[in-house]
Every structure is written in C-alpha cells, then in structure tokens.
C-alpha cells in the first residue's frame, strides 16, 4: 500500500510540477491576438495585397532580430527580467512589391500594446508602449497616452483611443463580407506623431475591427486627411512573386584552388535603423539554393533566406510558419519549412508564405523536389508529392513503415528509405512502387542519374550501390564509423564517415583511396570539398590528391558546423552564425 501510494504521489507530483508555459497575459484583449503561425491576407484600397505572418513568443526570442536601438529601448523600459518575461506578438508584413515591415506588440496587464516597427522605410519605438487594445476590451473603454515614438524623443506621439462595438457587416473593397466568427470589437484611434525638431506632425485617424484570433481584419480612416484602410481577404493560395535567386557562377569541371573570401557574419539590412549584425544561433545543416542559404534559427521559430556575395551574407527575408521549424529546403522557386505542428509551409522569393499543408506526421527529413513540386516523407512513412502552387498532395503513398531520411528524387523516380530496412523506388508521377529492396537502415543516399546508380550507406556499416533501373545491388563495401556524406562524381564514390573517408570505384566498388574521417563532403565538379575538424580540403575524387586546402578553426563545444556549395562558393556555417566562404576556381 505504501509503495503504491508513494508511486502514485510521485506520478501526480511530476505532473503538477511540469509547467510547459506561463499563463497568457493581456486579459480579455489576448483573445483578439492571432495565434502563433497564423497568416492573414489583407488588401488596401490600391489593391496591394499584404501577407502577414503572426508569431507569439516570450522574452528574448521575440527581439533577437530587431535593430539594437529597439532592443536597448525595451531593456530600458522593462529591465532585463521584464524583457525576458515579455509576452510578444509579432506581425511580419510583406507586400506584393516586396516591401517588408515588422510590428512588435506586447501582451501585458495593459492589454495589447505596440512596441516597435522596423524593417521598412519608417520605424518607431514607442516609449511607453502604445496601447492599442485595453485589457478588458470592452466597448466603452477609453484611454490616452503620450511619449516617444523614437528613442531620445526624436519623434514623439500622443494617442487617444476607445473601444466600440462592431455593428453591421465588415466589407472588403470588393464588397465581400468579412467573417466575424468568434466576435469582433472596434477601436477608434487618433494618433499624432510629431517631430519636435521642426514641429511637423502626422495624424492618423482610424477605426479598426479586431476579430477573435485574427487581429485587426478591417480598418478605415485617414493619414493627414488622405484615406487609408485595409480589409482581410480570404484567398487560400497565392501565386509566387519575386525573381528566384539569379544564376551564380558554377564550379569549374576541374577545380584547381580554393580562394578564401573574407570571414563574415550575417548582416541584416534596415532602411530606417541601418544595417546590423544578426544576433542568433542557427540549427544545422544549412540548405543551399543557387546563390543563397536557407537557415533556421536554433529556436526553430524563424526560417531565413540569406543572399551571398563576395562581401558576405545579407538577409533577404525571414518567415515564421508557427511552431518549431524542424527542416527547411529550397525546392524550385519555393523555400519550404516543415514544423512540429505537422505542417509544410512554402514561401516565395519575397518571403511570402504562399501555402501551408498539414501532414499525418512531422516531416523531419529535408524536403526534396521532383521537378518543381516538393516531395516529403513523414515520420509515419507517407511519401507525398505536393503541388508547388497549392500544397495539395498530388499523390501520397505509404511505405508501410516509418520513414527514414529524406526522399531522393532522381529522373522520374523517387527513392525513399524506411525503418523496416527497405529502400523503395516510386514513380515520380504516380507514386506507384517500381521496386523495393532490403537495404538495411539507410543513413545517406547519393544518386547519379548519368550512371543510373544510387549509392547508400546503411547504419550497419555497409555501402551499397544499387541500380536505379531495377534495384539490383551491384556491389557492397564496408564503412567504419557513422556515415555522414556520399559524393558520387567522375566514376568515383566518396563515402565520408566520422572515422574514415573511403573512395570507391562506382562500377566495381573497389577501394580507390582512404583518408581520415571528416564532418561532411560536397561535390565540386570532378573534385570534392571535404570539411574536416581543422581544415577544408579540395580533393581529386578519383585519386584523393589534395588539390588545395584552407585552415579553419576547430569548432568549440556545442557549436555545430555545416558545409554547402552554392554556385562556385563553398560556405562553411557555424551554428553561431559565423560564415567562412571560399570560391572554387
């Protein structure tokens, strides 16, 4: 009896002390704030559509990528603990033309307040915060406030607001009624922004409707007498806009040297507050597009596209699909993110979230592309080809076992491994099973369409070469250690594990040469770029001859390192955000 009571008491105790999250602040106003990951589409009178991503964070996560002056102002207002405990709502807006702004709000005992705006041509930092919706959110509430709209009183503001009921229908610019599901309240506001240096001011008169879980969905009013407003749209998917990243110089067929580019950090451009260095940690590995990188921050809430040039990396955009991003990749003209909410989200070149689709399980493995369409494998073992424009599944096939690793599209087939130690080849158009073999627990796959060959490393330490035509195992070899990369090029296969580098003849599997273990390898023409603990090597894949080498500092404990080749540039990224780049010549 005592034993049972003790066990039960402990079980209850563990459940009681398990506190996943703090109670939501903001009082009754919180219900009008969009949930994390929500996307709204709005249009203005001039027809410009704005895609807004909403994210909810607590503490530093919400302010890491803001300009320093905003972060400093927040610490100045609330102190260290106040910032760390701040419950934030962030709305990232992208217009058709690519203009981007970020609005940061706080949920507190005051209700919902605006803290800052950045990323566009105008920026604000409100001190004290500008209360937009009172904590009771009850019609009849009214309040006023005044303070600085930029640090040091460069701009000041005065505001007078009141909550009013929403009576009657809310219509968009085409006369379509906007849903009021869950209830809406109105806020009438008059905000005056003044420049004390010359007395110039801007007056905003606005009536805004806030609806439950969707934020401001409709507004009308004027800015200095000129009418302004917005209305929510219900378009389900968008056409991609913006030019895909341009063609970059390609790696020469027979590379001769690695030319170091200056070591750099990740830079964020801001037209108002000025450029600044991104503060953050990044989960790895990185994904490479033609001449840019796709990174995910180590908290997993931000998907980021970084443009590379000789001087470094500048952020094109960041997306927040909601929840935690567990994998990301560039596929065709899309950038994809998969999240722990079992969603796959697609962004265009402007960073607008075009669509998101729900899968049966989390997609942990990196998505791949069959033509322009994304192909994903869920942990439950379903392989899906998604329509690039809508995210709708074109086909979905169960592997009959948990999925293992990323899908590998090659030509008109898609290879997918599973946890029942099988490798399946599916028809890329229909998803039909073409062949299936027992391959062991596959860790890494590399394919060569020219040779109709797939080379895979299994966890058991076996390397298999498989014919893409029929799945016949052409040869086997043994690999000590944990497989990390396979590069298949110029008639040779380089398999890299943490203990050995093994180059094999792609026809026979005969060992061509051996080397020490490495962290990763990537193909560069007829050569291979290998990332070791303390250097990057450019090697001839057939002979193992070290064509060139470049030293790198060994990474510190807890810092992960990844390598990618974009165009002719070898990029080594640390999880701390430090970049090293070499041009392959």
């Amino acid at each position: 009896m005592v034993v049972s009571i003790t066990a039960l008491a402990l079980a209850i105790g563990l459940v009681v002390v398990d506190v996943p999250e703090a109670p939501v602040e903001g009082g009754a106003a919180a219900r009008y704030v969009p949930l994390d990951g929500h996307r709204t589409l709005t249009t203005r009178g001039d027809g410009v559509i704005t895609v807004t991503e909403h994210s909810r964070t607590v503490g530093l996560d919400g302010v890491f990528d803001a300009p320093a002056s905003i972060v400093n102002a927040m610490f100045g207002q609330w102190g260290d603990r106040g910032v760390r405990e701040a419950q934030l709502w962030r709305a990232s807006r992208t217009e058709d033309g690519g203009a981007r702004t970020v609005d940061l709000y706080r949920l507190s005992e005051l209700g919902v307040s605006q803290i800052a705006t950045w990323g566009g041509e105008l920026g604000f930092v409100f001190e004290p915060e500008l209360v937009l919706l009172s904590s009771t959110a009850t019609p009849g509430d009214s309040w006023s406030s005044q303070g600085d709209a930029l640090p040091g009183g460069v701009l000041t503001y005065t505001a007078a607001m009141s909550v009013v009921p929403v009576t009657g229908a809310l219509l968009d610019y085409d006369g379509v009624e906007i849903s009021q599901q869950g209830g809406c309240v109105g806020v009438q506001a008059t905000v005056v922004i003044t420049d004390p240096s010359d007395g110039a001011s801007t007056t905003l008169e606005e009536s805004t409707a806030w609806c439950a879980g969707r934020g401001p969905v409709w507004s009308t009013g004027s800015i200095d007498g000129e009418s302004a407003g917005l209305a929510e749209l219900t378009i389900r998917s968008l056409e991609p806009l913006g030019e895909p990243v341009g063609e970059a110089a390609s790696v020469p067929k027979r590379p001769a040297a690695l030319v170091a580019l200056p070591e750099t950090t990740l830079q964020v451009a801001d037209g108002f507050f000025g450029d600044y260095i991104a503060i953050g940690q990044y989960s790895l590995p990185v994904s490479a597009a033609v001449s840019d990188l796709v990174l995910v921050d180590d908290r997993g809430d931000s998907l980021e596209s970084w443009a590379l040039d000789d001087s470094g990396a500048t952020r094109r955009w960041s997306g927040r699909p909601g929840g935690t991003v567990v994998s990301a990749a560039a596929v065709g003209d899309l950038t994809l993110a998969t999240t722990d909410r079992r969603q796959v989200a697609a962004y265009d070149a402007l960073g607008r979230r075009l669509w998101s689709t729900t899968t049966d399980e989390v997609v942990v493995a990196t998505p791949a592309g069959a033509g322009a369409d994304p192909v994903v494998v869920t942990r439950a073992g379903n392989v899906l080809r998604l329509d690039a424009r809508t995210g709708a599944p074109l086909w979905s096939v169960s592997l009959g076992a948990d999925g293992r690793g990323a899908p590998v599209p090659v030509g008109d087939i898609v290879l997918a491994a599973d946890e029942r130690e099988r490798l399946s080849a599916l028809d890329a158009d229909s998803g039909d099973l073409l062949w299936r073999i027992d391959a062991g627990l596959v860790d890494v796959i590399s394919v060569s369409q020219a040779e109709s060959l797939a080379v895979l490393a299994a966890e058991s330490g076996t390397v298999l070469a498989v014919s893409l035509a029929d799945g016949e195992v052409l040869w086997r070899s043994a690999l000590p250690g944990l497989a990390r990369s396979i590069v298949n090029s110029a008639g040779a296969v380089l398999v890299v594990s943490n203990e050995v580098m093994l180059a094999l003849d792609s026809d026979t599997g005969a060992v061509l040469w051996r080397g020490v273990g490495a962290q990763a390898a990537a193909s560069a023409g007829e050569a291979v770029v290998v990332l070791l603990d303390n250097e990057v090597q450019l090697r001839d894949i057939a002979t193992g001859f070290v064509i060139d080498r470049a030293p790198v500092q060994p990474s510190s404990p807890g810092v992960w390192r990844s390598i990618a080749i974009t165009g002719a540039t070898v990029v080594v990224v640390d999880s701390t955000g430090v970049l090293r780049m070499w041009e392959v010549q």
Partner: protein
Amino acid sequence: MSTERTPPAIVSFFTGIVIRPIREGRVRDTGWPTGLLPIVVLASVAFVLAISLILGGPVIRAGSSLTASVGGGVLTLPRFILPTVLWLVIIALALMQTSALHVRRSLSVILTVMTVLVVLFIGALDLGADGAGGFRLTAGKVASVIAAIALIAFTVVRRRSRFAWWEFAAVFALLGVSVAIAIGGSAAQSAVFGIDVVPTAVAIIMTAIGQLAVPAALAAGVVVAQVAVTASRSAVAVTGRRAGSTSTRLPLLLGALLIVVAVWRVADVALPALLEGGLDSELLAALPGSAALLVLVVAPWWGLSAMRGTPGPDVDGVEAGLERVAIPVAIGLTITIAPIVMLLLSIQIAASWGLPPSIHSLTISVAGVLGSSTVVAINRSIIGAVLIVIALVLARRGSRGAPEILAAIGLLALASTIPSLVGVAVPWSSDALAMLIAAATLTALVVLLVRRRLDESRAALLATSLVLSAAMAWREVIADPLSIVIGSSGIALVLFGFVWGFVTEAKPTHGDSLEYPRPARVLLFLANAVFGVTVLAFGVLARDLDVPLNLDSFAQFGDQLLGTALILGAVVALWSALAVRSSVDSVPEGRSVAS
C-alpha cells in the same frame, strides 16, 4: 486402457515454445520476503505501461501536440507524456538502488555511484532563474546533493540488514522528491521566460543514461535465436509425441517430416539459384568465411570434450549454457559503456558546479575515442579472447554447455572484429551458414539412407538440424509481424527481446545466495527490464530509432554474436549426437525409417 488424449499438435507446439519457457522462466514467488510482491507488481505495471507507450507511440503522437528541439539534431516528442517517462526512469533507478543495498560490496558501490551521479546530474539541470549558465546554487542542486548524501548513508546503514519493503519506498521517495524539485523548479522558473525546459531535460537525461540499456538490448537480440531453437526442437518433438513412442506411425511421421523439411531446405537453397542462373554473388562470397566459422565452432567442441573427458552437451545443455552467460557476456562486450556514462555524468555535474568548459571538450574527445569503432572492436576482440580462455578453464573443471557456448561466442567475436581491425574483409553471413548446415545435414541424411541406418532418433536429429538451418537464415522473421504493426523492424526486434526476456529470463531470480539474496536479484532484474523498455519507449515516442541511442544496432549485434553462437552450438550438439550414435551403432537401434 488409458483415457488420456494427446493434445492437438498446435497446442503441444505452442506449449513447447511459449507456455513452458514462461512457466519456467517468469518472475515468481519462490519464497519472497514480505513486501516484495507489491514492488514486483508496481514494476510490472511500469513495464506494461512502457510497453503500452511503445505499442501506442504513433497513436499517442497523433493525438497530442508535439514539442520539438532543434540544434544539432531534431527531436519531436508528445509533450504531455514526458512526466510519465520520467516516472518510469525513477522507478527503474529506485529498483536498482534498492537492490544495491543488499548485493555484494563491489556491485553495491558501482550501482550506488551510478544512482548518485544520475541524481546529481538531474539536479544540475536546474540552472537557475533564466538558465543563463555559470554557477548558481539552485533548489534542484541542493535537493540533489541532500538526496545523494542520504542515499549513500542509507546504503551504508542498510547494507548488512535483511531486505525490508520500506527500503524501496524510502529510496523511491528520496529520488522522486529530488527529481521533482529539480525539474519542477527549473520548469516553473523558465516558463515565464517562454522556455519549456522539461522536453530538453528529459531528452538530456535519457541521452546521458540511455546507454545503460545497451547490455539489456544486446541480450534481447539473442531472443529470436532462442525462440527459433526452441521452436525447431518443439516441432520435431511434437511429431514424436503425436505418433507415440510405441506407435507404428512414428517412423512414418518422422520420415514424412524429414522429407518435408529436406525438400523445403533444398528448395530454399536451390530454387533461387535455379531461377537466377546461379547462387547469389553475396552468398557465394560469404561461403568461405562462413565455412571457416563453422569449422572454428565445431573444432573446439571436440577439443573441449577431449579436455574434459566427457562428450559435449546436448541442445538443452547449449541453451542452459547460453542462459548462464548471456548477461555477463553482454556486459563484457559493452564494458566501456558504464565508465563513459559515469565520466560524462561527472563532467556535466562538475560543469554545472563551476568547472571550466575546456574540461568538457576534453571529456567529449575522450568519450569519442572510447566510442570509436576501432576501440570498440579492440574491446570486443579482447573480450572474445577472454571468453575462450574462460571456456578452457571451465572445461578443465568439467563444466558442460557454458564452455562450448563461450568458446563459440568468443570465436565469433574475434571473427567479427579482427578482420576489420587488420583491414581484411572476411565476409560471412547467416544465409551462408544456413546453407552449409543444410548441405552438411542433407549429406548425412543421404549417407544414412544409403547405409540404411536412418532410424527414428537419427531422423529426429536430422530434422531438427534442418529446421535449425532454416532458423539460422530466417530467425528475424519471428519479429516481422511486430515490425509491420510498429513500422520499424529495429524496434520490433528489441521489443520482442525485452518482452520475451521479461517473461522467460527470470530464472536467476529464483535462486538465492549470501552475496546476491533473492530480493536483490528480483529488484535488479526488474530494474533492468523497466529501464530497457523505458529507453525504447522514449525512442518510439520520439519516433526516431536513434533516440536516445539506437538499441536496435546492439540487439542486432547480440543476435549476430550470441544468437548465431546458440544456433551453431545447437547444430553441433545435434551433429555430435548423430556422430556418437553412428560410431557406437553397428545396427540401427530403432525402427528403420528408410525401410
């Protein structure tokens, strides 16, 4: 006239491979002291709960929100179930530490050090108000130090006493309260900062101590081979019983069985070759190595018999020998794991108490070296050699069964590691071994037929040998139905091993001795079982075979080494019996099957 009816064949077969092993090998009251039963019930409930988590893992994930950790890797877990995982870990720890109160001093010290390190490690996860790092004296750390001191004192005080039921309750409460303070304190302080520490904390705990389940996983891997051997023998035995020892149907039935099995084995080996115009190239490549391995196992059999002066064991003796040595051999083969776990725990505890981070990186490097395939291979080679020496010593002392199986495991360990150490590939495979066993047995069958010496006993031996050759090639099929349900062959193999081990491998708990009293044996057995399935459950809940570590790879290794040794040992025992009978018989003893 007897009215007793022979049960249906399927019932006899099922009894032979399922009921009897469970009846003989389950945990049962063999004179337990007062209060042990409720603890066994609690541990059994925990075991069943963990199994439920494994079987229901996909459903649990589908029906709950997931929490994801990213960084060097991705870990997704159903959030609400994590306190349950922690509870299971604490139960396993409490069972282990309670057993440590009464076992021999050396083991008691090892187990207590491990428990204390785990407690301090979990306490160290309470980093303070904002998790900013550096040294902070937190409630979790203080509670863990108090719990550690109390555990050591309690162990010292109770070591010479007899088992008392309240010891478990006291240890359980002590561990539980300190863990709850550390995890709860950390969670409450972090939640206001938007940080959910529990998933990370549970993941860190499971990663840090999950390796301790490796010996159990290794032993679990041999279960499919054990079941295969039992099933092979049962199938033939049932045929004999169905016919009755005096029945005239016996030769006919055994003959029919032998023909069926022989045809099956020939077809299994020859059909693919005929259809594909020759033997599979991989099979061909593995034949020389496999033949050498077979000779390596067969030769010491007679060598050990000669040294002992008595014949080798029968199949029962081989199975009993494996039961005796499986866990010690598994621990020996993974001997580097416990020190690595202790080292890593110690360093992480020290780091949380202010140790410079440079020591941490040094430790990671040392752990990396110890875990490298070369060091592991060297360790396994040494263990292999030691096992052969032990086999020789035991044989000299007249022991049967254990020496043969130890020698076989030792030789297999050497055969699987030395070639890779010296960079020479000597491929061997279960399929090739199965083919060689079938070929040798069929040859013996033909010889006996030609010489008209195939009696009932020989037919039974040959049929069993042929079925075992099939078991050698197909034994993983036993876990296949489970893998279809679970969606992962690796998890299925380990789960099958854990469950079968829990219900059939508790024979050591039936014994009693001064250094290992019965309650301590029971508690240790249960701790091992509960911890093993908890680690597996965590991986299933994460839906990632590699989280916190890939138990399957160890189970596969156990199957490859211990399982192969068992089946080879059983086959050699059968051949040995056949050879002995052939050498002493001038005429068939039984009724001729050939006639």
